[in-house]
C-alpha cells in the first residue's frame, strides 16, 4: 500500500486501521513501511482516508502477490481457486474423506490472532512438524505448499523467507501414533519464533470418542478443548472410502 504524501495532511486517521502497525507519521505525513505491510488492504478497502491518499501498490514480485493473496480474504488464490488461504481442514471431510480414522489433521494458523508472521518463522515451524511426521497438504489444497521447495521437509523457497503476511496456515496430516511427537516439536519450536500461532487438531471421532486424543494432550500439558468446529455430516455424496 502507498500513501500519496502530496495529498496527506497528517491527520493520522489511517493509523489504527493498519493490522500490523505498518503506517506511521513521519515529518507530519503518513508513510507505509512496505517491509511490514502485509497488503491486507483493510485501510484501502474501507476508504478510511478523508483525503483519499491510499493507493494499492503495483504487486509485481511473487512475494508481494503472495502476501496480498494470503492477507486479503476477498482475493482468490490461483492454486486453490478459492478466496483467502483456502485450506480444507475438517470443513469438507464428509465428502472428501481427507482425514481418516488412523490420522489427525494438524492446522497451525501462523501469526494469528493479529500478530502477523514472517515466512522465516513459518519455515521453522513447518520443518519442525515435518520432522515429527506431518505430511503437508498439496499446493492444490493450500497456498503455502506451493512455496515449498521440498514438501516432505517443509523447506520454503528462500525468496519468500523475508515476506511478512497477516497469517498463513500450515496444514497437514499425521498418523495418530505420531501426535505426541508433533506436539513435542510444537512446544519446542514455539520458543524459537517471534510470533504466535493458533493450533487446531482435526479428528474423525467426536466427543468422548476422542479420549485417546485428549489423553495425549494431557500428557503434554494441554487441556481438553472447549471450542471446536463441527462438520455435522450433511455433505453429499458422503465419502465412503
Amino acid at each position, binding site marked *: 500500500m502507498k500513501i500519496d504524501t502530496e495529498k496527506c495532511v497528517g491527520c493520522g486517521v489511517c493509523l*489504527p486501521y493498519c493490522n500490523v502497525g505498518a503506517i506511521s507519521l513521519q515529518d507530519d505525513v503518513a508513510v507505509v513501511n512496505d517491509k511490514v505491510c502485509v497488503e491486507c488492504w483493510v485501510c484501502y478497502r474501507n476508504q478510511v482516508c478523508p483525503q483519499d491518499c491510499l493507493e494499492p501498490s503495483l504487486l509485481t514480485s511473487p512475494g508481494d502477490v503472495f502476501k496480498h493473496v494470503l492477507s486479503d480474504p*476477498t482475493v482468490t488464490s490461483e492454486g486453490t481457486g478459492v478466496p483467502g488461504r483456502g485450506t480444507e481442514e475438517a470443513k*469438507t471431510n464428509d465428502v472428501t474423506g481427507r482425514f481418516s480414522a488412523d490420522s489427525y489433521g494438524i492446522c497451525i494458523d501462523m501469526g494469528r490472532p493479529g*500478530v502477523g508472521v514472517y515466512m522465516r518463522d513459518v519455515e521453522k515451524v513447518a520443518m519442525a512438524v515435518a520432522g515429527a511426521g506431518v505430511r503437508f497438504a498439496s499446493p492444490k489444497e493450500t497456498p503455502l505448499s506451493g512455496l515449498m521447495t521440498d514438501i516432505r521437509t517443509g523447506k520454503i523457497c528462500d525468496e519468500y523467507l523475508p515476506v511478512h503476511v*497477516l497469517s498463513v496456515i500450515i496444514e497437514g496430516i499425521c498418523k495418530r501414533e505420531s501426535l505426541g511427537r508433533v506436539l513435542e516439536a510444537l512446544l519446542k519450536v514455539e520458543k524459537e519464533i517471534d510470533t504466535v500461532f493458533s493450533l487446531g487438531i482435526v479428528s474423525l471421532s467426536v466427543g468422548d470418542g476422542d479420549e485417546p486424543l485428549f489423553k495425549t494432550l494431557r500428557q503434554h500439558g494441554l487441556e481438553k478443548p472447549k471450542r471446536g468446529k463441527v462438520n455435522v455430516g450433511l455433505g453429499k455424496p458422503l465419502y465412503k472410502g
Partner: protein
Amino acid sequence: MTHSLHRCGRIQEKDFVWLLYHVKGVNDQNLVERLRQAIAIIEEVGAVNWGDVKSGPIVKVSPAEIKEKLTEKSRIRGVFTSRDQVTEFLKKMKAADLGFCVIISGVLDQVFSSCEKAGVKPHTMNYSLGVFGNKKLLADEDTLAITTMCGHHMIPDDFVTETRRRVKDGKVSPEKASLEFAELCPCGIFNQERAKELLILEKENPSTSGKKG
C-alpha cells in the same frame, strides 16, 4: 475462515458461527440455486449477520444484492446468537437435503447438544487448542474477544482499542461501535450483538482490561 475456530473471551454461549462449503466437482452442481435455498432457511431462522466474502456482510450490503451476486465462487457463512437457532438451522438443513458441507463453530458441549436435538451426527471435528508462541505480542484479552470474531482478522487491534476508549468516554454508543466493527469483517461472521454486550460489560464490569491474551 480457519480462525472462526479460535474465538476467545466472554459471552461465547451466545456466539455460533455457521459455514456452508462445497467441493469443486463433487457437490457444486446447481450451486447458486442451492445457495439461494440455504439462504432462505438462514433468513427464516434469523442470523444476526451473514454474508458472502465476495459481496460483503448484510450489515453493509443488502441480502437482495448478495443473492443477486451469487456465483460459483460464493461462500456463505454467518452467525447465530443462540443454541436454539443452531438446532432449528440444523433441522431445516437436514430436511432440505441440499448436500452442502455444514460447519458449526462454537463451545463444544453446546454445539453437540444442538446436533443431538436436530438429529445430526457430527462427522469430523477441528478442535481449538489455543495460542502458542511469543504471547507478549498479543493484544489484551478484551480486544482479542472482538478481533477474533472476524475469520480473517480484518478488524485491526488498534482500531478496537481506540474504539473501546471512545465507548468508555461516551463518544460512541456500544451499539454503534459494534456495527463499526461488523462493517470491517467482509465475510459476515462477526457477531455485533456479542460485541455490543462485551462493550457494555467492559464499561460496567471490567474483567481483564490490559491483560495480555
